């Protein structure tokens, strides 16, 4: 029986990393606790979007485009509208004009004419919603959809980026096929333009290598030529990463209704506070007329950063039909509109010294953007790779190509996963050729300290706030017993071959400049107002532990308010880009310090002495000599004093959303609100070293992950169990890219065939070892008060690449040249002695 060990016999430490003692010197930070949302979740009381009900609720269904690219010439909807029970129809003509964006510093970003609007008269992918029908029940709505006939004009379509880059190739949109960013000091928004490569460029394709024509985006540093000249080994490899649907388990169903001129919308989001301005933009109405409710969201992974534009469909239908409308999104619809990670067709030429140090890197990536807004994956990939491997000289080129395939968005480690998954197999191959240990070759290229990344901007390269990845790598190698596994022989027993792999991994880990808001009530309880989304990361609650820690209050006296924009939330970061833990612990810290300052001032006013003589701890504010008051008493005095103490006045630098929330709380207690103005030298990243062992059966091609370990450098640990969930959970998200997730298209019809879970194959519990391991260094980041950095994305690439590297360790370098790696690839390649997948065709 393999019951989990409860204790490590050697050190007496708990075998599970989540049970280690973190947070030395802290009462709350670094300690496990029961989050306040857990009871509702575990009893089934937690309400997600489709669980809400409204009196007289209608249902709507969508009509999806059967064409990959077409123009709607005429909609024949009379038969549908004549059906009893059909209440309203919504087409693209009913959508409000897209609103311009006004940024916080007053810049106007004009609405993009190529942007996604929710419904369309020119569908640009098969599966795109063209119109919606609301009816008394779904049966009627579905039947109405069946009765609607549309005359289409078929337009040229593209599902493989290389097809449109060919000279004479079709364009996915009438204006062109690539996103270009205008140059200049104050560049305008990105534009869709046309880019065609030459016949000569495409000669590379015949050799199985990525053609590299003109790239709209490029940067470089160092001397590439001399870097390659001085290299002991130069490798030039082409690799393709898969498109992977986010496939959140909760689809983006939404309920909407209007009441007294306000629209109420219930749907999932990663960022509660920031979804409000997004809805305002999509509906072209004032944020004051929107109530957004999202108490629980069933997963996001980047696909619901501010919800999704599709939520305006029930909102507009509800207005038309004068009744609440529930839009239930099916699993297939979710595959179409629910976002996906873009595939990269990439090529890297890498020069290595004899120790494996990267002397030069020439990186070229084609990003399959889908038909709509430009994703940032291509530029991110260059920055991440330059940080993680510190190439001595580097050129990055990228082209973001539009195609008539479902829309993409960021997915956990956008660009980071793709870039790292392209270079890691090259490094693994180089280590074998140079006779260098796989851990050693990564150690010699590892970033440390204020590591630089990207090109010089105005003469200076940017750099990270800190990096302790070498320590994480060393620690992980020790915990994984790397040397023992490498030395273990025989590697092959019968038809089973074992391999071990290691990968570095990193991604951005924090932003700055957001607001916090808390109120100490006259009963002594503290309410932390949280604008973070509740999508499962628990950061919605965790960051406030830092605030409670500063104030020295027991957690039992704390309430966290979240999930509804009418509950007076502060201006919060989006929960994307792994920024939340970093950004919002800073805001929580600033707010707690503001509360502390106010407590000291109130105490001095009432009890005499100077504010700085007072301390705040154990629910009291007190000074030597005995004068003290409880927090409850201080709250009462705050109300008496008014002004800044109880929210009647607010700090000028707060965001206007926060100011409105402060004003709404005025007079209810001691109100503390502050903007994070703390300095930060560098950009914040978090890092992971990932280790895997696989066992491959060379007769069946099937392989298992025998063991997996992720060693994380994410700054101060706030909540160990939640951290472990993120480190391992996101590792498995990455592992999915190696073991089977991808899209498959019928290229003739431009039709997606991988529409459901059993086609796309996200990892199941049997795809991963039953005892996955993780650890965290718990070394604080020096550039942030609480020391905590974000964690959601850094583990993802390592999950995928460590598996790929373990596979090539087991089977050699002539098996695969793209991910995922399936049994058929392994068997056909083993038999042929060379990789048998097509090196570059998309969606196979």
């Amino acid at each position, binding site marked *: 029986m393999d019951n989990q060990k409860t204790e490590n016999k050697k050190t007496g430490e708990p075998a599970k990393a989540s049970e280690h003692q973190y947070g030395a010197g802290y009462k709350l930070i670094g300690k496990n606790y029961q989050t306040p949302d857990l009871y509702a979740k575990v009893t089934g009381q937690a309400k997600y979007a489709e669980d809400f009900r409204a009196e007289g609720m209608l249902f709507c269904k969508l009509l999806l485009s059967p064409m990959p690219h077409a123009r709607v010439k005429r909609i024949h909807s009379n038969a549908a509208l004549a059906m009893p029970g059909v209440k309203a129809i919504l087409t693209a003509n009913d959508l409000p004009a897209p609103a311009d964006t006004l940024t916080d510093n007053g810049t106007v970003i004009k609405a993009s004419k190529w942007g996604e609007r929710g419904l369309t008269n020119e569908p640009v992918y098969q599966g795109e919603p063209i119109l919606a029908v609301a009816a008394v029940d779904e049966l009627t709505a579905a039947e109405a959809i069946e009765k609607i006939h549309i005359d289409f004009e078929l337009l040229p379509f593209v599902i493989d980026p290389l097809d449109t880059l060919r000279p004479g190739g079709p364009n996915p949109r009438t204006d062109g096929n690539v996103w270009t960013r205008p140059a200049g000091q104050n560049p305008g928004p990105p534009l869709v333009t046309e880019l065609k490569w030459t016949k000569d460029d495409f000669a590379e394709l015949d050799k199985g290598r990525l053609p590299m024509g003109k790239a709209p985006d490029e940067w470089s540093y160092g001397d590439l030529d001399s870097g390659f000249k001085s290299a002991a080994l130069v490798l030039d490899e082409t690799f393709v990463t898969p498109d992977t649907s986010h496939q959140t388990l909760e689809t983006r169903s939404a309920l909407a209704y209007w009441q007294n001129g306000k629209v109420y919308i219930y749907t999932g989001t990663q960022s509660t506070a920031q979804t409000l301005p997004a809805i305002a933009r999509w509906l072209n109405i004032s944020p004051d007329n929107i109530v957004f409710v999202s108490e629980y969201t069933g997963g996001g992974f980047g696909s619901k950063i501010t919800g999704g534009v599709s939520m305006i469909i029930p909102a507009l239908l509800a207005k038309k039909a004068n009744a609440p409308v529930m839009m239930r999104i099916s*699993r297939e619809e979710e595959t179409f509109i629910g976002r996906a990670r873009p595939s990269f067709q990439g090529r890297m030429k890498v020069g290595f010294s004899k120790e494996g140090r990267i002397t030069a890197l020439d990186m070229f990536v084609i990003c399959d953007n889908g038909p709509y807004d430009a994703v940032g994956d291509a530029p991110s990939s260059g920055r991440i790779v330059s940080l993680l491997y510190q190439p001595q000289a580097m050129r990055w080129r990228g082209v973001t190509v539009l195609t008539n395939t479902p829309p993409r968005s960021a997915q956990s480690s956008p660009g980071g996963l793709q870039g790292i998954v392209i270079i890691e197999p090259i490094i693994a191959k180089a280590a074998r050729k140079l006779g260098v240990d796989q851990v050693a070759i990564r150690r010699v290229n590892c970033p440390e300290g204020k590591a630089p990344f990207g090109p010089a901007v105005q003469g200076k390269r940017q750099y990270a706030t800190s990096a302790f990845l070498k320590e994480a790598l060393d620690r992980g190698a020790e915990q994984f017993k790397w040397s023992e596994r490498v030395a273990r022989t025989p590697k092959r027993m019968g038809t089973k071959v074992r391999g071990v792999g290691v990968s570095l991994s990193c991604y951005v880990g924090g932003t700055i400049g957001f607001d916090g808001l808390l109120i100490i009530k006259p009963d002594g309880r503290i309410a932390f107002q949280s604008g973070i989304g509740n999508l499962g990361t628990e950061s919605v609650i965790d960051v406030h532990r830092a605030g409670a820690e500063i104030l020295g209050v027991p957690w039992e006296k704390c309430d966290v308010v979240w999930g509804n924009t009418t509950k007076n939330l502060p201006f919060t970061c989006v929960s994307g880009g792994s920024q939340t833990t970093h950004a919002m612990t800073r805001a929580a810290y600033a707010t707690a310090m503001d509360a502390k300052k106010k407590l000291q001032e109130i105490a001095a006013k009432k009890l005499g002495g100077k504010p700085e003589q007072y301390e705040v701890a154990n629910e009291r504010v007190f000074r030597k000599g005995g004068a003290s008051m409880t927090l409850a008493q201080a709250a009462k005095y705050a109300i008496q004093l008014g002004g800044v103490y109880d929210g009647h006045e607010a700090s000028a630098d707060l965001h206007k959303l926060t100011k409105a929330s402060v004003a709404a709380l005025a007079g209810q207690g001691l109100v503390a609100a502050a903007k994070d103005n703390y300095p930060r030298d560098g950009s914040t990243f978090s890092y992971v070293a990932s280790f895997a062992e696989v066992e491959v059966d060379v007769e069946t091609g099937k392989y298992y992950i025998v063991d997996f370990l992720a060693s994380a450098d994410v700054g101060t640990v706030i909540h160990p169990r939640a951290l472990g969930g993120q480190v391992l*959970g996101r590792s498995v998200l990455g592992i999915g890219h190696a073991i089977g997730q991808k899209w498959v298209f019928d290229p003739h019809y431009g039709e997606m065939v991988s529409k459901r879970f059993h086609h796309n194959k996200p990892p199941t*519990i049997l795809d991963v070892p039953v005892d996955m391991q993780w650890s965290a260094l718990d070394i604080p980041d020096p550039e942030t008060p609480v020391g905590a950095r974000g964690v959601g994305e850094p583990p993802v690439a390592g999950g995928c690449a460590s598996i790929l590297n373990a596979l090539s360790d087991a089977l050699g370098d002539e098996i695969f040249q793209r991910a995922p790696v399936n049994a058929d690839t392994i068997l056909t390649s083993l038999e042929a002695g060379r990789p048998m997948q097509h090196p570059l065709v998309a969606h196979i």
Partner: protein
Amino acid sequence: MTEKASSKAIRDLLQDEVPKAVSRRNFIKGVITSGVAVSSASYLFRASSLLHGQQSAAGVGERLITLNVNGQQRRVDAMKQETLASTLRYKLGLTGTKLGCDRAECGSCTVLIDDIPYYSCSVLAHTVRGRKVVTIEGLAKADGTLHPVQQGVIDEQGFQCAFCMPGFIMTTVGYLKTNPNPSRQELAQGISGNLCRCQDYDKILTAMMRGAENLRRSNLG
């Protein structure tokens, strides 16, 4: 209910739908107007019958049936083709059971029927008459005391977004009735019909193993 008995129940239902000695054209027309053959992409249910005073589509009959859910006898109008998941969520106010795929791929809709885990999205409501249905809402005691497996989740901070949680918990409760002291490997096999997209599998397994331990202890004491 035995295998044979449930097949008979389904045959009995179909028997009512198809009139004898009918022409092929009329049969097809009848099937179409009864809504059974509506596009495969659609859901076949409604929030409540006769909403807005509208007649239901011709041929779609709802029947008043009694279901035993969470220990209570519940009277509910359900169409013949209505799934148990729809009935629970839209007619009985039990939204703890989730719909993740509606096609028996993900397990979010798992409930217990006579102590056996089923995908309620793929069970017809009419076929569970006379059987014991338990959903996530039926696990905790009336005084709020959690079921030992639920408590395991609390003890280990199991799950993340928790959309998959009710399904996993019901599957685990059902599985533990057949194997109360599983190894991690065995339990993983037992709950492998449930998907988690947050990929929290390691922590889910820890929470469910803890739940199993809690259950064993509570059965002893």
